[in-house]
Structures are given as structure tokens and as C-alpha cells.
């Protein structure tokens, strides 16, 4: 019996999606085999990690990650520049948290101004995220798309309950779009179909099947992502070929493992390493399942995830 390399080749291919401008533009996706399996297909683009910032101070982030930004997080422009210039961020994800009705309920106009200011201060690609309030995002993200017109941003998240206005705005201002559904491959597929039926180019779509933190449903996200990849590659299902987003940081930096002091849980070891490891391992797992674009918070977690990518590509 002699060994033959067991290769599998697929008809399908993940769409390559670019965002940002000029020499700082980035491309994700484009692979024709399962994650990092270069021996049987192309893996042209490495996963991209964006630094998450927000339009108001991160009062609800735990200390381990809040303290890192304590001198810059009072102002989104300073914060964005810090990530780009000091931390060498390749991309920045601005979350418009303050627009949420339960937070400051700031207006779409104010959000537009923040976006313009941030865009004027940085040259790396910008991802613009709403506050995840279905109704509010429907207006805020429309204004955001206009404010960022011409910058080839990624805008999101369009969900079943609000996708129409957001899709129209992304289309009008030529942005890339994140379509988000909640941990169900059929819902993800259905939303992608609804969006492309509005005339939105499927090659400009990024799918977010919903992330979860290590220990808190990670296995569901992992398997939904693997199944999306298999459907896109092996079945050549065109609706399942957009690159995948993993919104890692916001799910990780609220679970007990990233918050509880060592004095409360002596068996769990030091809090800082625990938190950083939690975000790193969540990101690594997502990438193995097919994530092309990650949004993360802690610089050390990002550094370790980047080193992991260095080894994987």
C-alpha cells in the first residue's frame, strides 16, 4: 500500500472582497480550499484583523482591555490614530455604540461627523458598525454610508429586520456590506439572497453568521462557519461564498473568564493572560472554521493572532 496525498478539489471559490483605498486597501477571501489547506487549492489572502474602537469611552469593557486605551479612548479620532500609528493596525472597526437608544441615543448626524473626522485622520481601511439596534441602525448606517462615500468602507450590520435601507445606502455609496444572521446556516443563506435580490453585487458582501466566545457557544459558531465554507466550496453554492466576519472582541470581553479577578477564581490563574488568551483562542478557532475578517480589541491578543496567521499562511 503506498501513500498518495489525499487531495480534494472544489468547484466553488470564496469571493475576494477588497476594501479601503490606495496602497492601504486590503483584500480578503478568494480561497478555493478549506482554511489554510494550500496543498489542494489557492489561499491568496491572509485573514485581516481590524482593531475595534468606538464613538464613546468603553466604560463597559473590562479593565484588562479598557486600560490599554485609557489615554486615547476619550476621543474616537485620537483612538483611531493611536491604533494606526502606534499599534500598526491594518484596519480599524468603528462601532457607533453611542447611537444606541439605551446609551446616548446620539443622532445619525453626529455619527456622520465622527465618521468623517476619523476618515480624515487615518489612511487604513475603515469598517463602520452600528450599535446593533435594528431600528436605529436603519437610519444611522444610511447616514454613515453617505458620510464615508468614496472611501470603499465595510458597513454593517444589515440584518433581516433592517437590511433594505442599509443595502440601498451601501449600494449608492459603493461600500462593502456585512450581512448578519443569528447562528443558522439557512438564515445566513436567506439573508444573502434577499440582499442580492435588491441588486447588491454578491461579490461585495461579507457574511457574519454571529460569533461567540470560547466557552460560550463557540462550537455553534465554529460549525456554522465550517458548514458555510463547505456549502460554498464543495457544493459551489454561490450564496454561501462571501468571506466570513468574526466579531470576536465584543463577545469575548464580557464573559466571566475575561472579567473575574484571580482572587475570586484562584483556579483560573492570572486575569490579564487569561483575558488575552481567551480572545486569542477565540480568534484562532474562528479562523480555522473559515473567518476571513476579524474584529478584535486587545493589542496582545491581536499580536498573537497575527503570529498564528504568520504560521498558517
Amino acid at each position, binding site marked *: 500500500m503506498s*501513500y498518495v496525498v489525499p487531495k480534494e478539489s472544489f468547484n466553488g471559490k470564496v469571493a475576494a472582497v477588497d476594501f479601503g483605498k490606495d496602497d492601504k486597501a486590503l483584500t480578503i477571501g478568494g480561497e478555493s480550499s478549506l482554511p489554510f489547506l494550500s496543498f489542494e487549492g489557492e489561499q491568496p489572502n491572509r485573514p485581516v484583523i481590524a482593531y475595534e474602537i468606538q464613538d464613546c469611552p468603553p466604560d463597559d469593557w473590562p479593565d484588562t482591555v479598557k486600560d490599554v486605551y485609557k489615554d486615547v479612548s476619550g476621543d474616537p479620532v485620537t483612538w483611531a490614530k493611536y491604533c494606526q500609528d502606534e499599534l500598526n493596525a491594518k484596519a480599524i472597526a468603528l462601532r457607533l455604540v453611542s447611537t444606541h437608544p439605551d446609551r446616548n441615543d446620539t443622532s445619525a448626524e453626529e455619527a456622520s461627523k465622527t465618521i468623517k473626522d476619523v476618515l480624515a485622520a487615518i489612511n487604513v481601511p475603515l469598517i463602520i458598525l452600528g450599535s446593533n439596534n435594528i431600528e436605529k441602525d436603519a437610519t444611522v448606517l444610511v447616514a454613515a454610508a453617505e458620510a464615508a462615500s468614496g472611501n470603499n468602507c465595510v458597513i454593517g450590520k444589515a440584518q433581516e429586520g433592517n437590511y433594505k435601507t442599509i443595502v440601498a445606502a451601501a449600494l449608492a455609496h459603493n461600500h462593502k456590506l456585512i450581512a448578519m444572521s443569528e447562528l443558522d446556516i439557512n438564515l445566513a443563506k436567506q439573508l444573502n439572497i434577499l440582499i442580492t435580490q435588491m441588486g447588491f453585487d454578491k461579490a461585495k458582501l461579507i457574511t457574519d453568521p454571529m460569533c461567540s466566545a*470560547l466557552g460560550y457557544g463557540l462550537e455553534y459558531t465554529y460549525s456554522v462557519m465550517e*458548514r458555510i465554507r463547505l456549502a460554498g466550496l464543495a457544493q459551489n453554492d454561490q450564496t454561501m461564498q462571501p468571506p466570513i466576519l468574526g466579531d470576536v472582541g465584543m463577545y469575548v470581553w464580557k464573559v466571566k473568564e475575561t472579567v473575574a479577578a484571580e482572587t475570586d477564581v484562584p483556579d483560573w490563574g492570572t486575569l490579564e493572560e487569561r483575558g488575552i488568551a481567551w480572545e486569542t483562542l477565540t480568534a484562532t478557532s474562528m479562523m480555522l472554521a473559515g473567518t476571513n475578517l476579524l474584529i478584535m480589541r486587545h493589542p496582545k491578543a491581536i499580536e498573537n493572532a497575527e503570529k498564528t496567521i504568520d504560521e498558517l499562511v
Partner: protein
Amino acid sequence: MALTGIQIFKLLPKTNCKKCGFPTCLAFAMKLAQGGVELSACPDVSDEATASLGEASAPPIRSFALGTGDKAAKMGAETVMFRHEKKFVNPCAIAVNVKDDLSNDELTAMAEAVANSEIDRVGQNLRVEAISIECASGDSAKYEAAVKLVAEKAPDAALILNCKDAGNIEAAVKTVAARKPLIYGASDENAEAIAAIAKANSVPLVAIADGPEALSALTEKIKGFGVEDIVLDSGAKKAKDIIEQNTQIRRSALKKSFKPLGYPVLNNVIRDDSILEASIAAVAISKYASIVMVSSVEKWKNLALFTQRQNLYTDPQVPMQVEQKIYEINEPTADSPLMITTNFSLTYFIVSGEVENSKVPSRLAVMDSEGLSVLTAWAAGKFTAAKIAAFIQECGIGDKINNKELILPGQVAILSGALEDKLDGWKITVGPREANAIPTYLKGRA
């Protein structure tokens, strides 16, 4: 090569006597081809058929234990490439490597860290299963002493003898033979000598070669020397090599029934930076390793790796569940508050943890909702007012407490009216939406 159901059928008695528990020989043959039953279930099968089916009906990935006793870690026996197809079977063992040239105190500290690594998470006891002793000194007496010391200080851990020198291995194996150490290992040059030691002591052996092809030749050779329990090390160190070679190995075994690679895999992920090491360990755990070798066992790192492994190895069809009953937390009295939740392990684990944190004596009624979270169970119709009312009445908790008040999870506040109608004489209170607000909430009531 694996036989098809029809090929197996031809070798069976074809009497359809049903003694195997199947209606026909053909049905039995089909199940056998899928690996769902053992050939021995048919009492009338001929010796000749057993001989020709034996090889083919063996599981595609050989299964055996790392270590001995009830803490031994089973390995192998995997049946799928992706966890959504079917549950991954035997969770990857975590092994920490120590060098024999450390001081006795350092060796003791590491062994004790392994011995005390057990953590309970979502109702499972998780631990670092193995300790690998590396012969860095090259000195036989020193190596043997280190192995002995570590074995003593970590009495339940599986042992890995990380040594390439036959002479040094032989001495060390003898001192711990009863613990069935895994010898790590044999390469093409020394395969014969080391396989002889493994065979004489009935212990498993790691085959070390450069890539799957060379490895498959080596395992055949080792098998020829009479050793069957083999672990594979394809030399992959970089994350990419780990994921690619482990994929090739598992695919060869499962899809091509290629026996020379039908064994559990060991990956060495040792890095200078401990967080990066944990990240690469996560690559190995997710992608098919049966043993992952690390260089340190900090508590935060153990917790992260245990959790990652637990997530990957849960059953994709059946969520982890806890028993339906009234859990007493912090020694409640008849006046203590009563809360209700579902029996999804994760939900129970989070909520009971927070109730414990509050130090407020309480009762937590856990209702069988087929292992679904609160909102999922509610959406699926398993956590409805009628079902909750029936559970509370049947369990008789109302007779044991003075105040008939039931606290609901905030996320299902919507149930409170209907529940009050159905549970006569009970007061229904809506608790906080998130479990982390429970301590403040309970203390505020007390």
C-alpha cells in the same frame, strides 16, 4: 481496504437467523461496513470470514489508551472530518514536556502542577492528562531518576518518555512499566531497537518521520516488529504543517482506509511565548491531534485549552445537559428565594456560579428543556408557562418553602402573567436579564 456491505454480506452465513439483532444478514453487513457493530455479534460467522473481515472491520483509526487506570486518556477511534457530522470521540490529551536536567524541585513543581491541574467546567472534570519527560541530559541514570520522580509526584498522569536513545529508554521504561508510558519515539534509524523495547514492555510507541509518506512506511515497519499501538508524529511544527499534515493523515485513514496512517496523532506546539503556544495548541486540538505537547501549564492556559477542547468535542446534536432537579446553593432554609432556569449545562453553570458568588442561600429549580438555553427553549416551546407550572407542581417544592415565590429569568419576563394564572397561590417575580446581575439582585432582596 474497507469492504462494502455487499462484499461483507458474501462472507456471512446468509441464514437470516437474526441472532445478531438485525433482521437479515444483509442489514447486519451494511451496518458492519459503516463501523456501527462488531463482527463478533454474529455467532455463526466462519473462521475464514473472521480472518478476512478482521482487518477490514477494524476501526479506521486505531484506539488505545494513554496511561492506565480510570484517568487514562482514550485516543483514536475518530470517524469524521468535521464536528457537525458527528461527535468527535476522544478529546485530545494535553501533555506538558519537562527536561530531565531540571533540579528535583523544578521537576517536582511541574509534576505537582499537572497532578493539581483538575478544573470543573460545565460539570466535567478537566485536567492535563500527561507529562512528558525529555532526556536532555543524555545520561541514563539521570533520566531514570527524573522519570521516577515525576511519576511519583504525578501519580495519575500518563507518562511520555521523550527520548530517542534505546539504552536510556530501556532503563526508564522498566521503572514505570506499570504506568504504560508512551515511548517518544522511534525514527527510521532506531525503529527496530525501540520497537523491541515497546513490545517487551507492552507499551505504545510514537513513530517519528518527516511527513505522512515517510511516516506511513515507518508505521508498517514498526508493525512488522510486533508493535500495534502506534502514535504518529509527522514532524509538523509550524501551524500550517500541523493543519495540512493532520488533515492528510485523518483523510487517508477515513476516506482511503489507508491503514498505515490509521493511528492517533501527536503534535509538539512548544513556543517561547506561552499565549502563542496556547494558540497553536488550539490549532492542533481543533484539527485532529490526539496528544498536544506544550511547555508549561499555567492555570489560565489550562482553562483556555480545556474549554477549547470541550467546545470542539461536544455532541453537535445533543447539547450538554444537567439533571432536572432543585439545586440547593449556599445552604438554603425554608425562607430562601427560589429561581428557575433551563437544564442547558452552560446556562446552569453560569447561573449557579453567580448564585454561589452572591453567597445568598438560594434554590435553583432546573427544568428539563432538552438542553436548550432559556431563550432557545422558550422559542422552541420547551420552557412555556404550562410546562413550568407543571414542573413546579409535580416536584412539590411548594411544600418545602414558606414563601411561594418563583423568580424567572429576565429574558422570559413575558411568561410571568400566564404563569401566575397557572400556578395558583404563587407569586411570580421577574429577575434580571443577565446572570451577572444576580448577586446584586439577590443581595438587594435579602
